[in-house]
């Protein structure tokens, strides 16, 4: 079970990568986020949203297997 993570905008800068594969040891988005925040503490400064299989979800969303995850920060530029 593998998660494919994609980082957008500032989340890519905070993690230092655009993409990453992670073993899926998480039952929910909340658990995944907690792990990512511990690994990449600069993410704590960004109020990003998480998409699972191209759908923006809440923290209580259950992860089940091989999912595609996107970390989406807000942009303000115009």
């Amino acid at each position, binding site marked *: 079970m593998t998660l494919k993570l994609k980082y957008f*905008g500032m989340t890519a800068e905070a993690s230092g990568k655009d993409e990453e594969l992670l073993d899926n040891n998480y039952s929910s988005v909340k658990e995944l986020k907690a792990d990512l925040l*511990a690994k990449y503490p600069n993410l704590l*400064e*960004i*109020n990003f949203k998480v998409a699972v299989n*191209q759908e923006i979800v809440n923290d209580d969303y259950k992860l089940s297997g091989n999912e595609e995850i996107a970390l989406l920060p*807000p*942009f303000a*530029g*115009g």
Partner: protein
Amino acid sequence: MNLTNQEKNRYSRHILLGKIGLEGQEKLKAAKVLVIGVGGLGCPVLQYLTAAGVGELGIIDYDIIDETNLQRQILFTVNDIGKNKAEVAKNRLKQLNPHINFNVYPEKLTTRNALNLFSEYDIIVDGTDNFSTRYLVNDACVITNKPLIYGAIYKFEGQVTVFNYKGGPTYRCLFPEPPKAGSVPNCSEIGVLGVLPGLIGTQQANEVIKLILGIGKLLSGKLLTYDSLNNSFLTLTINRSEEQVQKVLDEKSNFKDFDYDFFCGIISTFDVNEISLDELRKMFNSSDNFQLVDVRQEWEQPRVEKDNVLIAPLNELESYVTKIATDKKVIVVCQHGIRSIAAIEQLEKEYNFNNLINLQGGIENW
């Protein structure tokens, strides 16, 4: 709205298209669109809507043209520097298409003028460059029930979507809370690829035209993200949150007095005492009795190797509360001075601390 023969000739390449035709072109002429902000996004949006024959265009921007705008704000020339963006845009666009009615508002969009202004248009286009105006625009669209064509950019990436269209999601359904003040830098602080707003603004113009014509699929409930470095587009589904929409509607009568700068933390919502890195160095050199609480993870560099340092990562802060001094000054630090403010806020609000001082700008240059 009938077209003159001259207009029929001008728009012939639209009229030839089965999905547009004369009827579609007349819909474009009857449409009223308000474009907020004439920056990197607003310029291409206005240019294409003017060329396409959208009958009435509102242009609002209080800002003046600066030399650094010319790298991406393609309606302006060196002769326009120092002039109001909305006025210059109108004069330029009038030359492109004299059949369009332009309404120029060389003023700031505020909670005082937004509702009246929005109610005069069918569609609102967001080309602003800051969060407080984006939340203001969203809320005014929810209150006046107008579709919002949203575009936003960051360095090499952009986002486009249609908010508040026929029961679809709104900006607050995607981002209920604004980011912490100062945590998302703007184009003037970090730069932006000049061609990027051209691409994103053109996508916004395309959504406006499809919405007016009622053709194709709109990006309602779909956020299109674009990465210009990898040429990758990704479309993400956004769901409507009735709770978020209702919150805005419930506060409708307070809208005019709502302070969006305050909401977005531009005016400090949270009064925190701060010291500079130099002042911190002086405190270490003097005999000051204080504690330094580092809310970063243990491996983050540079470390402060002193006896009076407590390491208490922000995500585990609760378990360290009893070790934080209450009887002397406590300097709270992190990498950039943003997480430390969040830590101070949590400690003051939940645990009644009153001796906490933030290290401004963080410990990065220790």
